[in-house]
């Protein structure tokens, strides 16, 4: 039951729902999320009520079954309120709900998907051992057959949603094949690092996971081995698009704050928005947002229309994450000294943008991917 196109109405509707949620529930506590590195339970419950955990899941299994475009627009909007929360929902939807929905067996869907779409369980996936999605050729997390089980040994670092997830889909080396299996948090043969505090996205911490001859039933295999390249490709392109949505949402917040501040702040007897140096920064931010939003929106539509977006998704991730880094800094500089103190949100935007840019795959690696594609 794939919807192939998204309607503007669906997009507008989800944006409105998220705006209400954001204004009323998130805004009042957003700085606590950053300070305490914790997403409050009350917010997570509300997310479940709104059906945001299951946006990419089939309605048959409790999902909202929105188009990818709608999902991306919604998450871009949610990022304006809390990048920590939107990142949680993007990683969860893209890396657990979507993958099980697309590649899972019937029994995996009926056992797991409902729990994931309602947020009873939070999930994620991890590809490269180093937390990257692109370095999948030399996986040293080994899975060996032992009767009805696989025995998994190895370590996965910098796992997205790591600290919050109950459920992990991991890419393993099965000897001559590679494939994905899922492991649950309470498996006795795995151990977790402490949550990794980073410069930004506080509230959604990464984690490293070690597997010690960890026994997993063979029925936990996602798809067949021949599906592995497809699963990798879907996971890569959707995570890149998701990261792009977060980057653009953060930029938009940075611009909103810059506009507000530059109109209110007077120096030399006039609002600083009247100075050309400030105007150029603001215009530059708006130009970037317009370009990146159009790029992301267009590619998401192409994805809904089943076109191959793999390379374009990599391009979008690079473009928007670098723009977010540049533009959050512009916003901070427009704020002057006030941009550096915690009374204003803009220093958090800078930290969040830097964290998002560094997640998953480096832009250097993605540039190599694009160039290889173009020159091969």
């Amino acid at each position, binding site marked *: 039951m794939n919807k192939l196109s998204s309607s503007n109405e669906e997009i507008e509707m989800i944006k409105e729902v998220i705006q209400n949620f954001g204004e009323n529930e998130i805004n009042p506590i957003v700085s606590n999320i950053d300070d305490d590195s914790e997403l409050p339970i009350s917010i997570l419950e509300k997310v479940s009520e709104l059906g945001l955990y299951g946006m990419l899941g089939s309605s048959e299994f409790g999902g909202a079954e929105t188009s990818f475009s709608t999902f991306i627009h919604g998450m871009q909007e949610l990022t304006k309120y809390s990048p920590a929360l939107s990142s949680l929902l993007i990683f969860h939807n893209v890396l657990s709900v979507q993958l099980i929905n697309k590649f899972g067996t019937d029994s995996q869907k009926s056992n797991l998907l409902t729990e994931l779409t309602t947020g009873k369980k939070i999930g994620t996936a991890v590809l490269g051992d180093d*937390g990257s999605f692109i370095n999948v050729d030399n996986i040293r997390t080994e899975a060996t057959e032992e009767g009805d089980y696989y025995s998994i040994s190895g370590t996965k670092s*910098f796992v997205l949603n790591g600290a919050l997830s109950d459920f992990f889909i991991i890419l393993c080396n099965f000897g001559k094949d590679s494939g994905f299996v899922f492991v649950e948090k309470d498996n006795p043969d795995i151990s977790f690092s402490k949550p*990794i*505090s*980073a*410069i*930004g996205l506080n509230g959604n911490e*990464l984690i490293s996971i070690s597997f010690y001859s960890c026994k997993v039933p063979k029925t936990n295999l996602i798809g067949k081995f021949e599906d592995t390249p497809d699963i990798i490709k879907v996971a890569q392109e959707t995570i890149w698009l998701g990261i792009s949505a977060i980057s653009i949402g953060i930029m938009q917040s940075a611009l909103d704050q810059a506009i507000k501040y530059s109109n209110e702040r*007077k*120096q*030399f007897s006039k609002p*600083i928005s009247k*100075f050309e*140096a*400030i105007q150029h920064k603001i215009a530059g931010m708006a130009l970037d947002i317009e370009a990146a939003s159009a790029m992301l929106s267009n590619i998401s539509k192409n994805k809904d229309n089943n076109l191959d977006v793999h390379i374009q998704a990599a391009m979008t991730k690079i473009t928007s994450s670098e723009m977010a*880094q540049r533009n959050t*800094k512009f916003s*901070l*500089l427009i704020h*002057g*000294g006030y*941009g*550096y*103190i*915690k*009374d204003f949100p803009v*220093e958090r935007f*800078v*930290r969040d943008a*830097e*964290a998002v840019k*560094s*997640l998953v795959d*480096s*832009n*250097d690696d993605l*540039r*190599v991917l694009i160039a290889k594609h173009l020159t091969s």
Partner: protein
Amino acid sequence: MPFEFSFTKEQEQFRRTVREFLHENILPTVQDYDKNEEFPLDNVQKMASQGYFGLTIPKNYGGQELSKIEYGILLEEIGGICSSHGTILGAHLGLCATPIVLFGTEEQKQKYLPSLASGNSLGAFALTEPAAGSDAANIQTTADIDGEDFILNGSKIFCTNGDRADLTIVFATNDKNLGPMGGITAFLVEKNTPGFSVGKIEKKMGLKASSTAELIFENCKIPKSNVLGDVGAGFMVALTTLDGGRISLAVGALGAAQRALDTCIEFIRKNQSEGGSLSNRQSIQWKLADIAMEVYASKYLVYCNLVELEKYYKIIESREKVPRRLRDSVSRGSAISKAYVTEVASRAITRAIEIHGISGIKEGSEIERGFRDSFIAEIYEGTNDIQRMIIAKELLGLGL
């Protein structure tokens, strides 16, 4: 050799001694101070015991009487290990003690400089106000004459060392009608002066080991003998002080950029020794080369400016007339150094994060701290937009 540019043997030795001291005594502690947002009192005392807090103060007043070049070397080395520490020292020595050396009366020098030089007392500089940021002349704090005293009313914000300082230079308007040149006066305000209190301490993105305070003046009585420079000449005191302050910031930023470069080299070499491929990747090599190019250029720029600053301050200290061309050149040079090198440092640290990958953004890593610290250098002591305005107006002869 008409254009010789190198450090003397003594200066090289000074750098080695400073570096050794800092790396042994200060560096191991800085991450914790940053994490706990705690003022590094122990480190301040340790650095003071080395004479750093009076490095450029004349020997007559208990200082080391070293030149701006040694001051630059010191701040560069400190900037390499922790910007908070550099900021504490810069505010104390560059912004508080230096203007006393330049503009103070003999009595003021004898009274204040020895304890500042030894680090027994800490200095601060309070110019910025809520309505006077980039528009620094728009000071609202008032100084009304009352017999043999001035009465200060108003508030200052973003004052480095503000809550810790024993002595703060405070700028207030003695007569708004006279405008900045003639209407602003600098005052030496001692801690515990009735009517003077500390307000809010800011929570910041970085520079977490240095404290940034609001200062409040309510009918705060300051004797005329504590006017620094002439009544009405305070804005010149501020501008002249900031000419030096900005180069100091640049040299601190240079230290941070150099450290980012060193850290990257170490990281890439370690990766190589573990069989990694970073050292052979052009994306990594190019970033490293880009950092190195800019650091190399910055080094010449700031030390060139420091030589000129030394000349400039010596003339002021001797109370001779400063040639207009020298004043303009120092002012433009310090603006160029400040804007350029602080941006070099920001680019260096951003590239360093890219080289380090995700481990570069982990809380508690030196690179992560360097990133958070880097932004303020583009803002304080005049945003880089203001520096560009100074540079362009000076080049075009527009006046400020």
